[in-house]
């Protein structure tokens, strides 16, 4: 009787026509100890189905999304701090002491420059005397050309004679 019942159930089961209750019945039968030898090969299938239903997801799911948001903002804060470090001193400007120091350094450099320029001027006057020499040489050259003309003239006169 039970066997016949199971047989029809399995037939229906294979055609996917069983209801959930009937499937539960089958599962109960095959999970039991008294399985008829002709259905023995179904046993692992139903045992497997029942067994794999017991598998559980054990890992934790990190749901606190607030933490991740905080981490994102940390980099922004770091950049802001960096920018402040760069901008604030430039806005504050130099202190009185620094200003005086800068003025002193400026004056010192100006002095040094004026010293150099003095030397330069001296050199320049010496250079101007050199230029005078150059002019004299030019005049001499002109006079020399006159002399050459003179000699041409004398040659011509000599030929005529």
């Amino acid at each position, binding site marked *: 009787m039970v066997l016949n019942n199971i047989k029809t159930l399995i037939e229906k*089961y*294979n*055609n*996917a*026509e069983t209801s*959930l209750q009937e*499937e*539960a019945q089958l599962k109960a039968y095959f999970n039991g100890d008294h399985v008829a030898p002709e259905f*023995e*090969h*179904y046993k*692992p*299938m139903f*045992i*497997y*189905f029942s*067994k*794999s*239903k017991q*598998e*559980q*997801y054990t*890992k934790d*799911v*990190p*749901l*606190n*999304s607030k933490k991740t948001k905080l981490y994102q903002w940390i980099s922004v804060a770091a950049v802001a701090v960096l920018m402040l470090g760069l901008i604030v001193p430039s806005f504050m400007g130099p202190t009185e002491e620094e200003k005086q120091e800068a003025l002193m350094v400026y004056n010192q450099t100006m002095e040094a420059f004026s010293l150099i320029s003095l030397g330069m001027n001296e050199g320049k006057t010496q250079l101007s005397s050199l230029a005078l020499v150059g002019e004299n040489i030019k005049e001499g050259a002109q006079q020399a050309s006159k002399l050459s003309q003179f000699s041409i003239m004398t040659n011509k006169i000599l030929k005529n004679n």
Partner: protein
Amino acid sequence: MKQADFVSLVMPFKDKVFRLAKRLLVSREEAEDATQEILLKLWKNNKKIGDYKNVEAFSMTMTKNFCLDRLKSRQAQNLKIVHNNYTDNNASLQHQVEAKDSVDWVSKIMEELPEQQKIIVQLRDIEEYDFSEIAKMLDMNETAIRVNLSRARKTIREKLTNTHQYGIK
């Protein structure tokens, strides 16, 4: 929705999500990752969650789509060694022990089924959902599901009978 509410909402079916993911992705680690991803996605949309009529069915659909996407992208990758796509040719001791255990044969047989049938067997035979619920989850009609389920069950039975009688006939 508070975190506690969400957890109590998700609790009843998170194992089902995980089992479906494991059925499709095979490796436990990958299934865990997938489950986590899906739960996080749900949590991100927790304001809209009240609008869904059936969060569980919605999550199962999401799981199915997510895992199929994973499988597809895995196929697109060029020979990448993941947990399950390399096989040890030398039958290890564990393998031999497993082979003896005919219950584990069923899981091996199920691995060989087409994805669609895997999902249906998982939802019906293991999670024991109604056909109407499965139809909603998979966006199929009930007749198609019955046909697929019948095919899958018959395949499992045949292979199981073969291994059961192996060495006898």
